[in-house]
């Protein structure tokens, strides 16, 4: 295989209700490239493989070190961050597609607002008395911190829901990321004060019952968050609440 050039096949779309189309770009190979550095090269010289000058490809990115979650796309059929997709490790031609579970904004940029709305539904925060000086929080043992930290690394990037067979554009499933955040806050010493409110959202339509246990989410999570463990744990907490509520009536 010649290493002189890199070939990209990019699924483009001019706007939300437009027809999508494939466009091919062949750019010079440079060592240590990743998908984003190549998209930047295309920006500097936006000419497609037919030699036609076109509009530069639109995509989203920010931190470029796989910690902000912005640049998720489908690369060679796999959902992942484009910053950490190193060219030397990818088969060519490299196909780039927008995430399929969200409305396309333009080209590779999609609208993931639904994921942030899901965080509101599960009340993913710690209720507080105020931001004035109230001294330190509770003591927390290192093992507990280790579990919380892992869950807290979720960057709302969308990989888990892109890979999920139950999450679709026409339902309202919360998705693994939000369920896992509910677990994170239910284990926090003050976060758990509104644990039942979170469980009620999880037991509502589009909640935890919508999970089909395909386990794709945990496979694709770039931060190796134990998402299936989180779903199982929240399932347990929800059933407990269900039976408790039932017998109170």
């Amino acid at each position: 295989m010649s290493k002189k050039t890199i070939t990209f096949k990019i699924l483009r779309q001019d706007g939300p209700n437009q027809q999508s189309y494939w466009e091919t770009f062949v750019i010079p190979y440079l060592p240590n490239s990743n998908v984003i550095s190549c998209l930047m090269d295309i920006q500097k010289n936006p000419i497609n493989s037919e030699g036609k000058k076109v509009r530069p490809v639109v995509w989203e990115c920010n931190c470029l070190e796989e910690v902000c979650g912005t640049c998720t796309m489908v690369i060679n059929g796999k959902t992942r961050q484009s910053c950490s997709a190193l060219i030397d490790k990818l088969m060519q031609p490299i196909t780039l597609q927008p995430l399929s579970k969200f409305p396309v904004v333009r080209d590779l940029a999609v609208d993931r607002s639904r994921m942030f709305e899901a965080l509101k539904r599960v009340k993913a925060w710690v209720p507080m008395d105020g931001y004035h000086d109230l001294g330190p929080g509770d003591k927390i043992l290192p093992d507990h911190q280790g579990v919380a930290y892992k869950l807290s690394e979720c960057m709302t990037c969308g990989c888990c829901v892109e890979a999920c067979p139950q999450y679709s554009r026409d339902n309202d499933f919360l998705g693994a990321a939000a369920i896992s955040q509910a677990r994170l806050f239910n284990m926090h010493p003050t976060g758990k004060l509104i644990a039942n409110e979170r469980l009620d959202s999880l037991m509502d339509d589009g909640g935890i019952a919508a999970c089909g246990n395909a386990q794709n989410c945990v496979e694709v999570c770039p931060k190796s968050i134990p998402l299936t463990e989180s779903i199982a744990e929240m399932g347990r907490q929800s059933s407990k609440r269900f039976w408790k509520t039932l017998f109170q009536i």
Partner: protein
Amino acid sequence: MAKQRTIVVGGGLAGLAATMKIAEQGMSVLLVSFLPVKRSHSVCAQGGINGAVNIKGEGDSPEIHFYDTVKGGDFLGHQPLCKDMCYHAPFIIYLLDRMGVPFNRTSEGNLDFRRFGGTLHHRTAFSGATTGQQLLYALDEQVRRYEVEGLVEKIEWHEYLGAVQDADGKCVGAVIQNLRTGDIRAERGDAVVLATGGPGVVYGRSTNSVVCTGTATTSAYLQGAKYGNGEFIQIHPTAVPGRDKLRLMSESARGEGGRVWVPRKANDQRNPKEILAEERLYFLEEKYPRFGNLVPRDVGAREIYDICVNQGLGIHGDMKVYLDLTHHSREFLDRRLGGILEIYEKFTGVDPREEPMEIFPAVHYSMGGIWTDYTRTADGFIDHQSPRNQMTSMEGLYAAGEADYQYHGANRLGANSLLSCIYTGLMMGPGIVNYIKNQKESADDLPSSLFDQAQQQWQEKFNNIKKMNGTENPYKLHAELSETMMSNVLIVRDNARLAATVAKIDEYDERWKEVECVDTSDWTNPVPSFVNQLYNMIQLSKVIAKGALLRDEFRGAHYKPEFEINQPSDFKPESFPEYTKLKAEGGLKENSFKPDHLKYMRLYEESNEKWLKSSIATFNGKGPDINYEAVDTSLIQPRPRKYD
């Protein structure tokens, strides 16, 4: 009076801290962000946040933190602000703890602290090696709570273009652009906060995120706000080279015992693990026995530059040195540094738990930024009720976080940036609410013509940008600008090259007029926005380069060898206060100190009289006029720095 509100621009730590503090007081906030706030650049901060909680019983205190901070900044920081920040730091860490930040813990369940640069104490609270991400998420969650309650309206995918000013020049709103529709509109706001971060993208590849163009603060400067200490750009000693970005390798790697070294023999081609201990030059440990690998960043970056460029000892002759953690167990490294080691491995293919990392210095942070004000109390703290706090020289326009300029002087200490972001955001809240309550009329009561006019001005500007049909690709022109800045306004600075750079930037300014707007479509088109950002980056480069050219001294990150005053190796910094005291009392004699010490102190004093000042840039219609303002150094007397 109609309803009043604050507009906060920027959803990083400073912007979110300001938003939640203002909302807590019942005041509405319109939060404007380029990206979903959870994706802001604050996520990139790795190592931790400083606060003298003294968990290790080392006798640490906020006063020592304060001293380390102003010494680290080579005494150019504004002392009442630095003091107030350091005294509030333990409270801020406790607040974050209560918010649910999963800070690492000691075996007893207390917050754990680690070492960082420029101090001898364990003062840095941390959450693995993704502390910035964890802090940002905690603040994001609090703001989401207020959003649900209806006190905060968050609009993402919008860019700040400029301030709306009334007839007296007071800021009464902001012009923003919807990055999807391209629509430009003027929002009314009784106060506007710029919490828009730093300008690393001016240098092209840096440790900064793509959005860190400094456009918003530069826009304020172009509208007449003063810009302070622009020339002070921090170069982080340890980053990982990349084509699109120079990825940060956190100072916490050294805080946890990471050792920096090069082979003693130039161009040694062996695998680093085959090089024996006695064949390795641990140059920071040798030269700085007290601080070792944890010297402040300006010192570390200069030493790496010296080893690689002047002594030719960089790895394989390149501008790279080893950062070695291989003496620690995998378990220890994963628990305390996991995030950054995974990133290193992902991007380089090398496991840093097994092989020493190859790192080099990269542009990281701007100590300078928009000039902001404050009100001090008699005992040297800050009056938190004062509307002057964090207000720019444009009334009603505020700045916070990396966008401001007074906290870090000539060089910021590691883990003080997360602190200053959250501190400024929280501290300014009460003053802003007071400012708004004191207004005679609300922005909502002002005639709409004022806002229509501002909107139209920007609409016209963008119409013109879209019509630009020259020969310059804006992304290529940016690459040239950043190459020039990177080559000439970095670690070692020289007047002849700086003068040439200033002239070169003027050429870029001319060439900008020849830009082609390579995409003129209306929907989600980032090109017109980038063309505008590029214009602002060119203007800000002038501030940085001219400020560097005019400042004829060596202070912190601003190193001009030509003006370096050589410190005698046996000199003690405490001699300087003695010298000034003797001098003031009339008791100074030629034999009061060793002759070379006396000579050194006289030169140091003379240089400080001239240069211990903030440089203040104001836009004159073409470029910056630069003047100098006094710094409040009344709490800790400035003295020569020493870390060996």
